[in-house]
């Protein structure tokens, strides 16, 4: 168990709901859910969610910390915003799903091999490096994220798509060396560093 996780378990011994309200993006909304189930019927990956949003909200209130945070359910969120426009209580469900995933990831207890977790991490590292996404490197690191053997297999499977993208100039091998970038990457990095500091300090405070 990570140190951050142990500290949070200690601090919120009695209420996982309070922990979520304090630390999860838009977490203060969870208590407003009236368990109607509309959101759960809205997810495009519906059958693949072990615990759909409505159930996650119930589990949070029931204090099922471990089960919620180690779940891969919220990682199934495609950001389709179906739930948000349908929820009778106007809960920002999409953001709560993102928030739960991010919180579990920061505490180091999110499922290690969850593919979207890995992809999201690669994506963030890719975009923050130069301020703009390098699609080629992102694609390659994605194919190889499960190791070399797997990567070669996925790359072969994706070969035709890659060739199509190259032919139509929608992919550029030159991105391997350099590629698109912001000019003021130093400024951008300073902003992100400061934002991270402020966010970490908030988590300490609660």
């Amino acid at each position: 168990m990570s140190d951050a996780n142990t500290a949070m378990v200690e601090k919120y011994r009695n209420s996982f709901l309070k922990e979520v309200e304090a630390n999860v993006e838009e977490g203060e909304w969870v208590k407003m859910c009236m368990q109607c189930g509309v959101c759960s019927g809205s997810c495009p990956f519906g059958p693949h969610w072990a615990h759909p949003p409505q159930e996650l909200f119930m589990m949070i209130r029931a204090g099922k910390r471990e089960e919620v945070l180690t779940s891969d359910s919220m990682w199934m969120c495609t950001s389709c915003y179906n739930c948000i426009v349908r929820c009778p209580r106007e809960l920002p469900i999409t953001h709560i799903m993102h928030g739960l995933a991010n919180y579990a990831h920061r505490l180091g207890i999110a499922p290690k091999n969850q593919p979207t977790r890995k992809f999201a991490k690669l994506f963030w590292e890719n975009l923050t490096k130069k301020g703009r996404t390098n699609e080629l490197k992102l694609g390659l690191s994605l194919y190889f994220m499960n190791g070399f053997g797997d990567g070669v297999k996925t790359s072969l499977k994706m070969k035709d798509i890659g060739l199509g993208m190259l032919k139509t100039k929608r992919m550029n091998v030159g991105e391997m060396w350099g590629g698109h970038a912001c000019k003021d990457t130093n400024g951008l990095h300073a902003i992100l560093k400061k934002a991270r500091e402020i966010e970490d300090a908030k988590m300490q405070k609660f």
Partner: protein
Amino acid sequence: MAKKEYSFYPGCSSQKGASASNYLVSVQSMCEELDVQLNEIPDWNCCAASIGYAEGGELPRLALSARNMALSEQANPGQDIVATCAACWLATKETQERLHDSSDLMQETNDALAAAGLNVKADQTVRHMVEVLIEDFGYDELGKHVKKPLEGMKIAGYVGCQTNRPFGVDGESFENPKYLDKLVETMGAEPVEDYQKKVQCCGGALAFSEPEKSQALIKDIVEAAYDGGAEMIVTPCPVCQMNVEVYQDQINATYGTKFKIPVVYYSTLMSVAYGKNGKEAGLDGQIIAAKKLEEIAAK
């Protein structure tokens, strides 16, 4: 009509050699015809799309969009920010609303921006290009520029998620928005009535990390277009465009289907109808060639 100017946020996928570079080409041709000037936000950065949350968290993510807004306020004061990508639009608009709703977030965001000597007021309106077309021009005006109506074509308007929810276009419903169909009609083609999967999710960014689950959704989207008698799909979103176009072969291999339907942008249709040639309309960016449009463009 006088020239219209906007502060333009093109986004990563529109860059040269990137996956939606053909989108930008067609948007530029369309804007040239409509006398729209797009003033690119200098040194803009990525918005983190809908997948940046896991590693980025809340404030760093908001700060990314806030930096773009701050740069826009400096360089293009008083102009609406216009994005062509659904995810760029959504992230920027969402950030703008959040900063307005919470003085704490506004303060924290500006503390972060100060690290690069920037400050944001977040008072520019953030719009998607289709809003500009519908609201600042209107269908009648857009129709007046048509030189080569797309006669005899039947097209499925695939709106998808993020240009439709949570914000959507004013006056449209979330379950059955009509603007794309109206644009198709305005360009002289026939829209598919009751396109069943019009607002169905394509998997978005998860098409990369969860290919099987996403391709099952994409299969339904393409199938419903064929069922509606469409020969082409049109969309306002670069993620939708890519997902629905490029995986058709893999879906065919998995499900034994015979999909081969071109997927274009509204701006592709408009550029061709406005008399631009194939290159100007970005048709050379189609992986599944839009032959009918090529023929019209070559006429």
